[in-house]
Protein backbone atom coordinates (compact mmCIF):
# COMPACT_ATOMS: atom_id res chain seq x y z
CA UNK A 1 0.00 0.00 0.00
CA UNK A 2 2.86 2.39 0.70
CA UNK A 3 3.89 2.22 -2.93
CA UNK A 4 0.41 3.33 -4.01
CA UNK A 5 0.37 6.43 -1.77
CA UNK A 6 3.93 7.24 -2.83
CA UNK A 7 2.93 7.10 -6.50
CA UNK A 8 -0.26 9.14 -6.00
CA UNK A 9 1.47 11.85 -3.96
CA UNK A 10 4.50 12.07 -6.26
CA UNK A 11 2.25 12.10 -9.34
CA UNK A 12 -0.02 14.90 -8.13
CA UNK A 13 2.96 16.91 -6.95
CA UNK A 14 4.80 16.34 -10.24
CA UNK A 15 1.82 17.18 -12.44
CA UNK A 16 1.30 20.43 -10.56
CA UNK A 17 4.93 21.52 -10.73
CA UNK A 18 5.22 20.53 -14.38
CA UNK A 19 2.11 22.54 -15.17
CA UNK A 20 3.62 25.54 -13.40
CA UNK A 21 6.87 25.16 -15.37
CA UNK A 22 5.25 25.16 -18.81
CA UNK A 23 2.36 27.47 -17.88
CA UNK A 24 1.62 30.36 -20.21
CA UNK A 25 -1.11 31.90 -18.11
CA UNK A 26 -0.86 33.24 -14.58
CA UNK A 27 -4.32 31.94 -13.64
CA UNK A 28 -3.34 28.50 -14.89
CA UNK A 29 -0.17 28.86 -12.83
CA UNK A 30 -2.18 29.53 -9.66
CA UNK A 31 -4.27 26.42 -10.29
CA UNK A 32 -1.14 24.34 -10.87
CA UNK A 33 0.18 25.45 -7.51
CA UNK A 34 -3.10 24.36 -5.93
CA UNK A 35 -2.83 20.94 -7.58
CA UNK A 36 0.73 20.61 -6.41
CA UNK A 37 -0.28 21.52 -2.89
CA UNK A 38 -3.08 18.95 -2.88
CA UNK A 39 -0.41 16.27 -2.78
CA UNK A 40 0.46 17.43 0.73
CA UNK A 41 -3.10 16.82 1.92
CA UNK A 42 -2.93 13.24 0.76
CA UNK A 43 0.53 12.78 2.22
CA UNK A 44 -0.51 14.15 5.62
CA UNK A 45 -3.68 12.08 5.81
CA UNK A 46 -1.96 8.85 4.77
CA UNK A 47 0.77 9.42 7.33
CA UNK A 48 -1.88 9.55 10.05
CA UNK A 49 -3.83 6.51 8.87
CA UNK A 50 -3.96 3.43 11.10
CA UNK A 51 -5.29 0.07 10.02
CA UNK A 52 -8.67 -0.70 11.55
CA UNK A 53 -8.98 2.69 13.25
CA UNK A 54 -11.90 5.09 13.19
CA UNK A 55 -12.15 8.87 13.02
CA UNK A 56 -10.70 10.77 16.01
CA UNK A 57 -14.19 11.73 17.15
CA UNK A 58 -15.49 10.12 20.30
CA UNK A 59 -19.13 11.16 20.30
CA UNK A 60 -20.94 7.91 21.01
CA UNK A 61 -17.67 5.99 20.67
CA UNK A 62 -15.99 4.43 23.65
CA UNK A 63 -12.79 6.13 24.72
CA UNK A 64 -9.72 4.10 23.86
CA UNK A 65 -11.16 2.86 20.56
CA UNK A 66 -8.33 2.99 17.99
CA UNK A 67 -8.51 6.22 16.01
CA UNK A 68 -6.35 7.73 13.30
CA UNK A 69 -3.87 10.48 14.14
CA UNK A 70 -5.79 13.73 14.81
CA UNK A 71 -2.71 15.96 14.64
CA UNK A 72 -2.14 15.48 10.92
CA UNK A 73 -5.83 16.09 10.29
CA UNK A 74 -5.57 19.43 12.09
CA UNK A 75 -2.46 20.20 10.02
CA UNK A 76 -4.34 19.36 6.82
CA UNK A 77 -7.03 21.83 7.85
CA UNK A 78 -4.38 24.54 8.23
CA UNK A 79 -2.88 23.49 4.92
CA UNK A 80 -6.19 23.88 3.08
CA UNK A 81 -6.93 27.29 4.57
CA UNK A 82 -3.48 28.61 3.75
CA UNK A 83 -3.73 27.13 0.25
CA UNK A 84 -7.01 28.89 -0.47
CA UNK A 85 -5.83 32.27 0.78
CA UNK A 86 -2.57 32.09 -1.12
CA UNK A 87 -4.47 31.16 -4.29
CA UNK A 88 -6.72 34.19 -3.80
CA UNK A 89 -3.70 36.43 -3.37
CA UNK A 90 -2.00 35.06 -6.50
CA UNK A 91 -5.18 35.53 -8.52
CA UNK A 92 -5.43 39.12 -7.32
CA UNK A 93 -1.83 39.66 -8.39
CA UNK A 94 -2.61 38.13 -11.78
CA UNK A 95 -5.53 40.52 -12.15
CA UNK A 96 -3.25 43.42 -11.25
CA UNK A 97 -0.65 42.32 -13.78
CA UNK A 98 -3.32 42.02 -16.43
CA UNK A 99 -4.46 45.53 -15.64
CA UNK A 100 -0.95 46.92 -16.02
CA UNK A 101 0.48 44.80 -18.82
CA UNK A 102 -2.67 43.70 -20.63
CA UNK A 103 -1.59 40.08 -20.58
CA UNK A 104 -1.40 37.11 -18.23
CA UNK A 105 1.29 35.27 -20.19
CA UNK A 106 4.49 35.42 -18.14
CA UNK A 107 6.64 35.39 -21.29
CA UNK A 108 4.80 38.27 -22.89
CA UNK A 109 4.99 40.29 -19.70
CA UNK A 110 8.73 39.68 -19.49
CA UNK A 111 9.11 40.81 -23.11
CA UNK A 112 7.10 43.94 -22.50
CA UNK A 113 9.39 44.92 -19.69
CA UNK A 114 12.66 43.72 -21.23
Amino acid at each position, binding site marked *: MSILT*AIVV*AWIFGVGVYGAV*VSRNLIHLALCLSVSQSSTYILLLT*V*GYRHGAGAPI*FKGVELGTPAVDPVVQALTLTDIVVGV*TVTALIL*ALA*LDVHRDAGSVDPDEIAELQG
Partner: protein
Amino acid sequence: MSRRDVRRLVGVPVVAALAVILAAGILAGPEFGEFHGAYGQMLNRVAVPERHTTNVVTSIVFDYRGVDTMGEEFILFAAVVGVVLLLRDEREPGRDTRGDDVQSDGIRMFGVAMVGPVLLVGLWLAAFGLVTPGGGFQGGVVIAAAVVIVYVTVGYRQWRRFGRERLLDPFEGLAAAAYVAVGLAALVAGSAFLRNLLGNGETGTLLAGGSMSVLNWAVAIEVAAANLVLFTEFLESYVVPHIPER
Protein backbone atom coordinates in the same frame (compact mmCIF):
# COMPACT_ATOMS: atom_id res chain seq x y z
CA MET B 1 13.15 26.56 -30.33
CA SER B 2 10.57 28.52 -28.42
CA ARG B 3 10.86 29.36 -24.78
CA ARG B 4 8.07 26.89 -24.09
CA ASP B 5 10.01 24.05 -25.68
CA VAL B 6 13.07 24.91 -23.63
CA ARG B 7 10.99 24.84 -20.48
CA ARG B 8 9.54 21.48 -21.41
CA LEU B 9 12.98 20.08 -22.17
CA VAL B 10 14.40 21.21 -18.86
CA GLY B 11 11.16 20.77 -16.92
CA VAL B 12 10.43 17.12 -17.62
CA PRO B 13 13.65 15.64 -16.18
CA VAL B 14 13.76 18.06 -13.24
CA VAL B 15 10.14 17.45 -12.25
CA ALA B 16 10.54 13.70 -12.74
CA ALA B 17 13.61 13.73 -10.50
CA LEU B 18 11.76 15.70 -7.81
CA ALA B 19 8.80 13.30 -7.94
CA VAL B 20 11.08 10.26 -7.69
CA ILE B 21 12.89 11.74 -4.70
CA LEU B 22 9.55 12.49 -3.04
CA ALA B 23 8.24 8.96 -3.68
CA ALA B 24 11.48 7.44 -2.39
CA GLY B 25 11.20 9.55 0.75
CA ILE B 26 7.64 8.38 1.38
CA LEU B 27 8.61 4.74 0.81
CA ALA B 28 11.48 5.06 3.28
CA GLY B 29 9.01 6.15 5.97
CA PRO B 30 6.71 3.91 7.99
CA GLU B 31 4.51 1.42 6.14
CA PHE B 32 1.01 2.69 5.24
CA GLY B 33 -1.31 2.35 8.24
CA GLU B 34 1.49 1.39 10.60
CA PHE B 35 2.59 4.81 11.81
CA HIS B 36 1.71 5.37 15.45
CA GLY B 37 2.59 8.98 16.15
CA ALA B 38 2.92 9.17 19.92
CA TYR B 39 1.55 12.71 20.15
CA GLY B 40 -1.60 11.98 18.18
CA GLN B 41 -2.30 8.73 20.00
CA MET B 42 -1.83 10.41 23.34
CA LEU B 43 -4.22 13.20 22.41
CA ASN B 44 -6.80 10.63 21.31
CA ARG B 45 -6.67 9.18 24.83
CA VAL B 46 -6.53 12.38 26.90
CA ALA B 47 -8.45 14.99 24.90
CA VAL B 48 -11.94 13.85 25.87
CA PRO B 49 -11.28 13.52 29.65
CA GLU B 50 -9.21 16.71 29.73
CA ARG B 51 -11.24 19.02 27.50
CA HIS B 52 -14.68 17.36 27.39
CA THR B 53 -14.88 17.85 23.62
CA THR B 54 -15.50 14.73 21.59
CA ASN B 55 -13.99 16.03 18.34
CA VAL B 56 -10.27 15.65 18.98
CA VAL B 57 -9.27 17.45 15.77
CA THR B 58 -11.14 20.59 16.83
CA SER B 59 -9.72 20.51 20.35
CA ILE B 60 -6.25 20.34 18.81
CA VAL B 61 -7.04 23.27 16.54
CA PHE B 62 -8.49 25.51 19.24
CA ASP B 63 -6.79 24.32 22.40
CA TYR B 64 -3.71 22.11 22.25
CA ARG B 65 -2.36 24.02 19.26
CA GLY B 66 -4.46 27.15 19.62
CA VAL B 67 -1.53 29.50 19.08
CA ASP B 68 -0.84 27.89 15.69
CA THR B 69 -4.43 28.49 14.73
CA MET B 70 -4.08 32.14 15.69
CA GLY B 71 -1.16 32.36 13.28
CA GLU B 72 -3.22 30.62 10.64
CA GLU B 73 -6.06 33.04 11.18
CA PHE B 74 -3.71 35.91 10.61
CA ILE B 75 -2.37 34.32 7.43
CA LEU B 76 -5.97 34.35 6.26
CA PHE B 77 -6.41 37.91 7.45
CA ALA B 78 -3.18 39.10 5.81
CA ALA B 79 -4.06 37.43 2.51
CA VAL B 80 -7.49 39.06 2.50
CA VAL B 81 -5.95 42.44 3.27
CA GLY B 82 -3.49 41.85 0.42
CA VAL B 83 -6.27 41.08 -2.05
CA VAL B 84 -8.22 44.12 -0.89
CA LEU B 85 -5.18 46.37 -1.29
CA LEU B 86 -4.56 45.07 -4.79
CA LEU B 87 -8.11 45.20 -6.04
CA ARG B 88 -10.01 47.82 -4.12
CA ASP B 89 -8.01 50.99 -4.69
CA GLU B 90 -8.87 52.01 -8.21
CA ARG B 91 -12.52 51.21 -8.16
CA GLU B 92 -15.28 53.76 -8.32
CA PRO B 93 -17.85 52.34 -5.96
CA GLY B 94 -21.52 52.48 -6.74
CA ARG B 95 -21.09 53.01 -10.45
CA ASP B 96 -23.67 50.77 -11.94
CA THR B 97 -22.68 48.61 -14.76
CA ARG B 98 -24.48 46.07 -16.80
CA GLY B 99 -27.84 44.43 -16.44
CA ASP B 100 -26.96 41.09 -14.93
CA ASP B 101 -30.36 40.29 -13.53
CA VAL B 102 -30.93 36.59 -13.26
CA GLN B 103 -32.91 35.43 -16.27
CA SER B 104 -33.38 31.75 -15.62
CA ASP B 105 -36.29 30.64 -13.45
CA GLY B 106 -34.48 27.37 -12.84
CA ILE B 107 -31.54 29.12 -11.24
CA ARG B 108 -33.85 31.28 -9.15
CA MET B 109 -35.77 28.29 -7.89
CA PHE B 110 -32.61 26.36 -7.17
CA GLY B 111 -31.23 29.34 -5.28
CA VAL B 112 -34.31 29.89 -3.17
CA ALA B 113 -34.48 26.20 -2.34
CA MET B 114 -30.79 25.94 -1.46
CA VAL B 115 -30.08 29.07 0.60
CA GLY B 116 -31.82 27.86 3.75
CA PRO B 117 -30.44 24.32 3.83
CA VAL B 118 -26.89 25.45 3.00
CA LEU B 119 -26.94 28.14 5.69
CA LEU B 120 -28.29 25.59 8.15
CA VAL B 121 -25.55 23.10 7.30
CA GLY B 122 -22.97 25.84 7.80
CA LEU B 123 -24.34 26.84 11.19
CA TRP B 124 -24.60 23.21 12.20
CA LEU B 125 -21.00 22.47 11.17
CA ALA B 126 -19.78 25.45 13.17
CA ALA B 127 -22.01 24.92 16.20
CA PHE B 128 -21.27 21.22 16.60
CA GLY B 129 -17.63 21.60 15.62
CA LEU B 130 -16.49 20.54 19.06
CA VAL B 131 -18.79 17.53 19.23
CA THR B 132 -19.09 15.91 15.82
CA PRO B 133 -17.12 16.39 12.57
CA GLY B 134 -16.96 20.06 11.63
CA GLY B 135 -15.63 23.26 13.13
CA GLY B 136 -15.36 26.98 12.61
CA PHE B 137 -13.29 26.79 9.44
CA GLN B 138 -15.58 24.34 7.69
CA GLY B 139 -18.76 26.01 8.93
CA GLY B 140 -17.52 29.46 7.92
CA VAL B 141 -16.89 28.37 4.34
CA VAL B 142 -20.36 26.84 4.04
CA ILE B 143 -22.01 29.94 5.55
CA ALA B 144 -20.19 32.07 2.98
CA ALA B 145 -21.39 29.68 0.26
CA ALA B 146 -24.98 30.29 1.36
CA VAL B 147 -24.52 34.03 0.89
CA VAL B 148 -22.97 33.48 -2.52
CA ILE B 149 -26.04 31.45 -3.49
CA VAL B 150 -28.07 34.56 -2.64
CA TYR B 151 -26.01 36.42 -5.24
CA VAL B 152 -26.63 33.69 -7.80
CA THR B 153 -30.35 33.94 -7.10
CA VAL B 154 -30.97 37.69 -7.02
CA GLY B 155 -28.26 39.10 -9.27
CA TYR B 156 -25.60 41.69 -8.63
CA ARG B 157 -27.65 44.79 -7.97
CA GLN B 158 -29.69 43.42 -5.09
CA TRP B 159 -26.76 41.49 -3.73
CA ARG B 160 -24.68 44.60 -3.52
CA ARG B 161 -26.94 45.92 -0.76
CA PHE B 162 -25.22 43.68 1.73
CA GLY B 163 -22.22 42.45 -0.24
CA ARG B 164 -20.48 45.64 0.77
CA GLU B 165 -17.10 46.30 2.23
CA ARG B 166 -18.53 48.49 4.93
CA LEU B 167 -20.65 45.61 6.15
CA LEU B 168 -18.14 42.80 5.74
CA ASP B 169 -14.88 44.40 6.85
CA PRO B 170 -15.87 44.87 10.51
CA PHE B 171 -16.78 41.18 10.81
CA GLU B 172 -13.47 40.21 9.29
CA GLY B 173 -11.41 42.43 11.56
CA LEU B 174 -13.38 41.99 14.76
CA ALA B 175 -13.48 38.20 14.51
CA ALA B 176 -9.71 38.09 14.10
CA ALA B 177 -9.38 40.43 17.07
CA ALA B 178 -11.78 38.31 19.14
CA TYR B 179 -9.44 35.34 18.87
CA VAL B 180 -6.58 37.38 20.29
CA ALA B 181 -8.87 38.89 22.91
CA VAL B 182 -9.78 35.43 24.21
CA GLY B 183 -6.08 34.66 24.48
CA LEU B 184 -5.29 37.93 26.23
CA ALA B 185 -8.22 37.53 28.62
CA ALA B 186 -6.51 34.41 29.95
CA LEU B 187 -3.28 36.37 30.42
CA VAL B 188 -5.13 39.12 32.30
CA ALA B 189 -6.73 36.48 34.51
CA GLY B 190 -3.23 35.41 35.46
CA SER B 191 -2.84 32.16 33.53
CA ALA B 192 -1.28 31.17 30.20
CA PHE B 193 -2.23 32.70 26.84
CA LEU B 194 -5.40 31.11 25.38
CA ARG B 195 -6.00 29.01 28.47
CA ASN B 196 -9.60 27.90 28.80
CA LEU B 197 -11.27 30.23 31.30
CA LEU B 198 -14.87 29.21 30.92
CA GLY B 199 -14.62 25.69 32.23
CA ASN B 200 -15.00 22.47 30.31
CA GLY B 201 -18.75 21.92 30.35
CA GLU B 202 -20.48 18.60 29.97
CA THR B 203 -18.79 16.07 27.71
CA GLY B 204 -20.27 15.70 24.25
CA THR B 205 -22.77 18.54 24.46
CA LEU B 206 -22.90 21.95 22.81
CA LEU B 207 -21.75 23.48 26.11
CA ALA B 208 -18.51 21.49 26.14
CA GLY B 209 -15.26 23.30 25.43
CA GLY B 210 -15.66 26.64 27.23
CA SER B 211 -13.38 29.20 25.60
CA MET B 212 -12.99 26.86 22.65
CA SER B 213 -16.57 27.54 21.60
CA VAL B 214 -15.84 31.27 21.55
CA LEU B 215 -12.72 30.70 19.43
CA ASN B 216 -14.69 28.35 17.20
CA TRP B 217 -17.35 30.97 16.49
CA ALA B 218 -14.78 33.73 16.06
CA VAL B 219 -13.08 31.60 13.40
CA ALA B 220 -16.40 30.76 11.75
CA ILE B 221 -17.26 34.45 11.41
CA GLU B 222 -13.73 35.32 10.32
CA VAL B 223 -13.68 32.63 7.63
CA ALA B 224 -17.18 33.45 6.37
CA ALA B 225 -16.37 37.18 6.22
CA ALA B 226 -12.99 36.54 4.60
CA ASN B 227 -14.53 34.40 1.87
CA LEU B 228 -17.22 36.98 1.23
CA VAL B 229 -14.72 39.85 1.11
CA LEU B 230 -12.64 37.88 -1.41
CA PHE B 231 -15.75 37.05 -3.42
CA THR B 232 -16.90 40.68 -3.38
CA GLU B 233 -13.51 42.02 -4.42
CA PHE B 234 -13.16 39.64 -7.37
CA LEU B 235 -16.76 40.16 -8.40
CA GLU B 236 -16.43 43.94 -8.29
CA SER B 237 -13.23 43.98 -10.28
CA TYR B 238 -15.07 41.96 -12.90
CA VAL B 239 -18.33 43.88 -12.83
CA VAL B 240 -16.97 47.38 -12.35
CA PRO B 241 -14.35 48.12 -14.98
CA HIS B 242 -11.70 50.37 -13.46
CA ILE B 243 -9.61 51.42 -16.40
CA PRO B 244 -10.76 52.87 -19.68
CA GLU B 245 -10.29 50.59 -22.66
CA ARG B 246 -6.96 51.08 -24.33
